[in-house]
């Protein structure tokens, strides 16, 4: 499975009612709330074996699928 599919699978574990690919403002539009975000971070940590530092949790990184993928790549071990 490619990275994007794994990302979508990890996100859908948290919210299976959201079409992540279609949304451009997941956070700013209030589609995701703080509980979702906590769960998404845990889900990404597990799926990609990464650690996203809490201080780096910024809305821009969670607003779109592409932004999340980019963030995941940043935190993946080289």
């Amino acid at each position, binding site marked *: 499975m490619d990275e994007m599919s794994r990302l979508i699978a990890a996100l859908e574990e948290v919210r299976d009612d959201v079409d992540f690919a279609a949304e451009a403002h997941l956070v*700013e539009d209030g589609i995701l*709330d703080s*509980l979702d975000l906590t*769960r998404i971070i845990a889900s990404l940590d597990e799926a990609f074996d990464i650690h996203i530092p809490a201080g780096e*949790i910024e*809305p821009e990184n969670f607003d779109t699928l592409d932004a999340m993928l980019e963030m995941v790549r940043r935190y993946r071990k080289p």
Partner: protein
Amino acid sequence: MSTRNILDWLEEAVALAPDAPAYEMPGNVLSWDAVCRKARSAGTALARLAPRQTPVLILMDKTPECVCAMLGAAYAGCFYTPLDSGMPEARMKRIAERLQPSVILYGDKYAGVAERISGEAKLLNAADLPEETDLPLLEGRRARHIDTDLLYVLFTSGSTGTPKGVSIQHRAVVDFIEWACSALRLPSGVRFGSQAPFYFDNSVLDLYCTMRMQGSLVLIPRGDFMFPKRLLARLQEERIDTIFWVPSALTALARAEVLQPGCLPDMKRIFFCGETMPCGTLNGWKQAVPGADYVNMYGPTEITDVCSWYRVDRDFADTDSLPIGFPCTNTRIDLIDGEICVSGTCLSPGYYNDPEKTAAAFVQHPLRPQIPEKMYRTGDLGAYNDRGELMFLGRRDSQIKRSGYRIELGEIESALQNADGVVLSCCYFDEGKEWIVAAYTGEAEETAVKTALKAALPKYMLPDLLLKRETLPRTGSGKIDRKVLRQEAESEHLIH
């Protein structure tokens, strides 16, 4: 003359500081004068629709205008119930059926849902509130006020699946706020940063201490709490000097490693209540904001937010437990078989429109058999430490706290039970992971059960793990055994 109605404080604030900011959010600041005018016009509209001391259900976002709507209900001599607009409609409907509101006052975007849950209630769009105030009408309502009139009813999770409406009188709020302003040494002009939603009783301290001290309350946008840097920047920009938050909100900020010594020069008072405060979080904050007052408070909604308090007066190791301290003024706490039992002015007269649950939780005080006196059994276990301070030890039943939300596992089990194709159900809470684990038996597919739960429960109650089982373990008496279920789930490495 002593205060009998919380509106006395509002009118005092208008007299002393009419133009000072009162309730505000970024880009929307209402002065005390504006709050009073808007509350009176809401009160006028409500008094035209609702008899005195009837419920007003409020379905609005957390805005300064929502505060005016709540105070408007008080001007009309009614009482308010703010509803969480994010909860599933089915649960709203159950609350509305229990409350039987005379009016539903709603924000524009909730028009559809307000209509669908309305039953016999009259509907009032907040956008249609009149500008004018019918003072004689409001004065008529005020003249009939007594201090045992209800001010609000807040709904909390109920073990049988129906939320319970905790009713609170003016006099309990007056007593609580007078205690809080003095014990917490609040200065006039105090500037609070609000985290608690209005349907959560921690907001009572925020709202009315602000009013009593002619201060201001900044309604921090909910989204800020998702992003530690943004939240910290908000506290700095708004020059917040006092916060009263659930420990999980304080923990999130402490863990994010954004707190640095000197980062919050204006912050003077850090208060918390709603769940156990980890000493590690406290120590993180004390390092960053060393000069502030730290106060731990404790209390269920049924005793008006807070019944005991402890001002942090010594150092604690990260692994220590923080005391919940001593009873507030006019509050008595007895430990009866280890259970924290509360009596005094703070007590709710009962669950609204629910005599059975009221009778079970509010009982005759066993140590005062000579006169009728009520005592509330919290279901929390406590003990005194060597210093005579009260310590919280946990629950005696299946109520849990997650992110400060009070949840009865029974409400989740009841929602599971109501899903098509589910025969038996059981849940437990994994405190370490903060996970709710639910299991069920029956034909139902997991996805269908998940969908049914989403339609019945608020998000913070949804299980993090749902297990379909052939059978569920039983205790000797035939009850479903949560402990054994947990052992099974853990031994099968479903939780690790």
